[in-house]
């Protein structure tokens, strides 16, 4: 996931796009070390082992679990890998006001 995420961040650095992590490692110190070592520039909630209360609320049972939210915080994708690039780009265009928002499709990816 990291290389793909790094490339997404780089590709969309001037666009209304952000990666937010919910990290499930043991300690905040461990998280800081990984962020430094792997050059992860995006912000993560430190949620504690297993993703803590946040992962519990979101009923996360497998890692990674990814949600893609549009500009209105509406869930447009959920799955265990990265969402399709086209969808990310479509939502960015919506957020930038270039195209009107389409109603979300009723399906989830794996």
């Amino acid at each position, binding site marked *: 996931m990291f290389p793909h995420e790094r490339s997404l961040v780089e590709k969309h650095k001037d*666009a209304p796009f952000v990666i937010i992590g919910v990290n499930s490692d043991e300690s905040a110190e461990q998280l800081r070390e990984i962020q430094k070592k792997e050059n992860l520039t995006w912000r993560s909630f430190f949620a504690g082992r297993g993703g803590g209360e946040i992962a519990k609320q979101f009923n996360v049972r497998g890692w*990674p679990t990814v949600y893609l939210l549009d500009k209105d915080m509406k869930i447009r994708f959920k799955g265990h890998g990265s*969402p399709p690039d086209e969808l990310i780009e479509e*939502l960015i265009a919506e957020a930038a006001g270039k195209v009107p928002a389409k109603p979300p499709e009723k*399906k989830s990816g794996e």
Partner: protein
Amino acid sequence: MLPLALLGLTSCLIAAPGTLTLPVQEPTEGRRVDPADALADLQQRYQEAQVAFGKLYQSAKTDEERQKLFQESYPKGAEYAREALAIGNDAKGTDVAAEALVWAMQLGLDSDMQTKVLKLLLENHIDSESLGDVCFDLYGGPATDEFLKELVEKSPHDAVKGKALFQRASIAKDSSAGEDDEKAALALFEQVIESYSGIDHPWGGTLGEMARSNVFEIENLGIGKICPEITGADADGVEFKLTDYKGKVIFLDFWGFW
């Protein structure tokens, strides 16, 4: 490996206590092995094969070698399952047979074999409490839904009924392709909450807690729903919340490095 394991078994047999309950030997089957011993031997051989493979795998130097090893030398679950199935057939109706079949289910069976094992379990072991352990290994396959339904209906154990119902709900949720499946999954999880809340889930917590989390997910975390707020602190202890980023596209990633 095989002869060694058998030798080990023979010495076990000689030293084995509890000979009082040995069944009367049938003269035509002089070499008949006690099913419990046969199962113990089978499980031991499988475990030894796993360990041996682990050592081989560790000694491999390149990815290609590793890949080749996986294809050629990884212990074939189906072969061990066939033996387990034979024990299940021979000892029909006994606890050992149930144990053998339940064990076989963990070996990653193809759908033919899975159907056979599930059929035997239903026919001969519907009263066994160990059937609860099978439920969480079942995700698909032609016989799965029927098997789980039968358990919910006919098992005398609440723990088995609850686990079977929970798994039916989980499968309905994961295969959810439209609102009807979603409603079916919700209804099944509600039944779990109503009737089997206190039963332990093998991953921790109770079936009731897990079912409530699933209901929350179906109702609040589906495509098109507004994502619930998240508040917390980042790696440096700085507080922030998800809605700080409203207006942007948010790639929300639950991750860990472990």
